């Protein structure tokens, strides 16, 4: 969606995930990038080289925080120290909004460090929405939750994934970080129609889109972020921005990371679809 309350009313364009192998290139060449997304946890220790680099990036670029460890669907109590550190980092980056995943990952204080799928039940939706609200109240920043790739569906599920996502974000009154690669991966693993997923979520809540590559195994697809964006994901992305409107878009490339210009070129391909969607939005506005 164009700027909205869930992304801090931002129209950021096309961004790239900030990754260690690109630090030197970015600091030396200062490439023209609309924005960077950082993994919050990489900068939450509060000192050392990661923060030194981040400060230099912040001098030049807009940075948005994306997390991997809030585990919004875990039943464990929220870790107050983690939230305090996250808030300190957000004050430093001035991130206009903040995202994490619609998943769980810890139980009884033990962490799996994985983004595990939730059962799609009303109980889980209520619980997760309450946690999202609590986190947002503490951080005082808009929050978007990201749909994850998954490889398992629970027997106890009472609804589809898109119904669950919609239920959670409506209850929590938060935004969606729509990962179109994750929709595609899960659709292949579970046998649903990704376009139906796309059409059934509340478009007005989408604050950001992720695009990425994946790895196809014989019997399933793994979300690896180690390839260019494949054609089916671009097609889904085209449909997403056509339905939702021009939306902050971020390319993730986390393994087998190529040179910065290679990653940048891949990200810029998103421009084709974003600009088309801007055109169609203008045409419909004039009609």
């Amino acid at each position: 969606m164009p700027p909205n309350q869930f992304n801090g009313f931002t129209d950021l364009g096309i961004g790239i995930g900030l990754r260690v192998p690109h630090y030197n290139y970015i600091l030396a060449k200062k490439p023209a990038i609309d924005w960077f997304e950082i993994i919050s946890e990489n900068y939450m220790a509060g000192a050392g080289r990661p923060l030194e680099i981040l400060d230099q990036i912040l001098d030049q670029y807009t940075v948005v925080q994306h997390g991997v460890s809030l585990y919004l669907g875990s039943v464990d109590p929220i870790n107050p120290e983690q939230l305090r550190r996250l808030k300190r980092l957000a004050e430093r980056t001035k991130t206009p909004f903040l995202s994490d995943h619609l998943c769980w990952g810890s139980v009884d204080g033990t962490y799996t460090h994985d983004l595990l799928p939730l059962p799609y039940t009303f109980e889980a939706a209520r619980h997760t929405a309450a946690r999202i609200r609590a986190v947002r109240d503490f951080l005082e920043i808009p929050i978007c939750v990201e749909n994850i790739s998954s490889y398992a569906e629970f027997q106890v599920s009472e609804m589809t994934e898109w119904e669950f996502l919609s239920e959670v974000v409506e209850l929590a009154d938060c935004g969606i970080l729509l990962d179109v690669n994750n929709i595609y991966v899960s659709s292949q693993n579970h046998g649903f129609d990704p376009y139906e997923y796309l059409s059934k979520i509340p478009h007005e809540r989408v604050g950001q889109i992720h695009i990425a590559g994946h790895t196809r195994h014989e019997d399933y697809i793994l979300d690896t972020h180690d390839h260019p964006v494949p054609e089916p994901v671009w097609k889904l992305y085209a449909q997403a921005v056509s339905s939702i409107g021009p939306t902050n878009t971020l390319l993730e490339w986390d393994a087998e990371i190529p040179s910065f210009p290679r990653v940048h070129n891949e990200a810029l391909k998103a421009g084709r679809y974003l600009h088309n969607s801007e055109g169609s939005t203008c045409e419909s506005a004039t009609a």
Partner: protein
Amino acid sequence: MTSDAHTLYQLQRRMADAIMRPLTAGQRIHRRSADGRPMQDLAAELIKPSKRLTSLERLEIYNRQYWFRVVDSLYEDFPGMRAILGQKRFDALITAYLLRYPSRSFTLNDLGGNLERFLNEEPHWASPLELMAADMARFEWAQVVAFDGEERPPITAEHLPKSDATGLTLQLQPYLSVLELGFPLDDFVIGLKRLAAEHTEAGITARHRRRRRPRIRLPEPQPTFLVVHRFRNSVYYKRLEPEAFRLLAALSGGQTVGEALTAAFGPLPEREGPRDKRAACVADWFATWAQLNWFCGCGIK
């Protein structure tokens, strides 16, 4: 936990137990759970099968992902330990370690924080190199701490009281570790890094690719006193003389400068010559340490 989340908790507990159970030697999911139940039954109770995968196969994806992720993280933080024990024994050690000390932190950075403790509790995982392995765990963990551990504003001469310094206490930066090792592991790790760099460069030609990666010799016992610290955001190891080590170790333990000097040198010499020499030496050390921003607080006891 709210009563609303009770069923959700039970599902998460069962799922976590299943995916955190170690893999088989062939890196597959075990056919039975820890309490002897067929894993297939447990998986089927929790997870729907897909058109192409059974419930157990779907559970196995998460089981493997968990272990690959945590093991990779420890590979990165403990390359010296891997070199000492070799791949197979290192894998066995960290599997046993993670069963006893699974992650209790939201960040993977903290994962190796109990490895030295575990090696002291269960030294047989590294036998007969248990002493060297425990030292290496401490040394490599100190590097993790030095990389991005908390930094407090350093103190300068103006912060120090003008009166006699013998009752003064000095706090060391949280990112700094003062270590007494039984082996020169700093040299060993530097040698490993050099070898890895040479191997990477050599790897670009086919001629070198055919060579076996050379192994570095394990170090002989030798008392080694080190500070692992950070300066201008790079991690360094600095060797210390035994007296300097005892002095810093006493200060980091909260002793006063007077007590730390006694711990370092014994009672004050009666003759002026040795006393002056010792004072000059200590002044040099403190000047260097202050330049490196190692002190971050002071008080009077």
